[in-house]
């Protein structure tokens, strides 16, 4: 596996050329990543435990120093799970038999700070750790058969800790690729679900804007 990654890195370097990144000249970066999300914790108890492959992350960051970066992050993730038909007791005397589907979308907007232990002069692959906090716009819809049963949009707190690495590419070093993971904490307290915590894996690209 390590060999394959090394070969990919060398191929990328040969293809796009090696050029030093002058981060101090271009401190603003735009990032766009494809995101996988793996629900964990309370969310998986009869609500949604399916992995979501329908998501993205975007962020605009500013390099304060060669080691520290701040910025704003936004994103979108769509979760869905269908449960087989069963009979639900909705009242003392009322029963509903239905296939139930839970659909949940999250749109996080967060402030982000990042620490990069290595300098670009030391390595082409730069690992980082990050922290972010902000709000999470959560839209939930439950369906019985094709009929919407419950619907609610809420604003919730969200925080995340992550780590990853990025590598500059291109002759000018103005863009590159990145990949990482994060753990998200997001309290919810609706419909018997205490939180929407999840693990994420993302990969994408960045571009230095100025």
């Amino acid at each position, binding site marked *: 596996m390590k060999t394959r990654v090394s070969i990919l890195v060398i191929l990328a370097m040969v293809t796009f050329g090696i050029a030093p990144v002058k981060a101090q000249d271009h401190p603003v970066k735009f990032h*766009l990543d494809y995101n996988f999300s793996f629900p964990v914790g309370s969310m998986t108890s009869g609500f949604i435990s399916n992995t979501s492959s*329908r998501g*993205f992350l975007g962020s605009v960051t500013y390099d304060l120093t060669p080691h520290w970066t701040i910025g704003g992050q936004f994103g979108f993730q769509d979760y869905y799970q269908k449960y087989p038909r069963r009979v639900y007791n909705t009242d003392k005397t009322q029963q509903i038999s239905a296939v139930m589907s839970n659909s949940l979308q999250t749109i996080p907007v967060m402030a982000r700070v990042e620490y990069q232990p290595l300098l670009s002069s030391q390595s082409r692959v730069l690992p980082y750790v990050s922290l972010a906090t902000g709000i999470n716009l959560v839209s939930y819809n439950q369906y019985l058969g094709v009929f919407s049963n419950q619907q609610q949009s809420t604003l919730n707190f969200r925080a995340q800790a992550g780590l990853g690495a990025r590598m500059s590419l291109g002759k000018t070093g103005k863009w590159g690729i990145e990949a990482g993971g994060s753990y998200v904490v997001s309290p919810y307290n609706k419909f018997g679900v205490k939180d929407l915590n999840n693990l994420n894996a993302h990969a994408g690209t960045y*571009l230095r804007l100025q």
Partner: protein
Amino acid sequence: MKTKMSLLAIAIAMLLITGCGKDPVANLTDEESRIYITDHDSSANFSDFHTFYVSDSVAVLENGKSKMQLTEAGQAYIDAVKQAMIRNGYTAVNKDQHPDIGITVNRIISTTTGVISGPSYWDMYGSYWDPYFWGYPGYGYYLPYNYAVYSIREGAVSLDMIDLKNAPESGELKVIWTGLIRGSNIYNPVVADSQVKALFDQSPYIKSL
């Protein structure tokens, strides 16, 4: 330029991949689309009833108006209800043989308000099924439980079970059980039996001794 084009392509690809999220109901089959709702009078002892009669036509309810109709699908529903009742130990009799239970079959195409609720269904029930039909002119229908409000824009089939045995004593036509089927392709003779069976399966208390 090449870099910008690459980034633009990646951005467009991501938007296409994520889209607007998965449509939760787009991939449901007809069977998965259907829901079956039943409610009943908790004070009714269904084993006290022994005979029943199912209406020989279907009330078609549309925007506050009704008409009686008998199509192939309607007949299939009537037959399916008869079979379900017989399986549960009841005896089918003619209307003039004083059945203990009367059952109506109704097709709801749409309502003026788009919902089926007390005002839009039960308050007009006497115009769909004149109490005279059961031999009790002047009586009123009584629903001893809360009938939930459902949006009906796509059509539904309902079955209602009326206590005729105790009507002379109580002076009213008490609705002791209701069943409602909603979803895709339900008013179809091929599926009538399975739809009625689903309602009875989730109502195991409907048993005659």
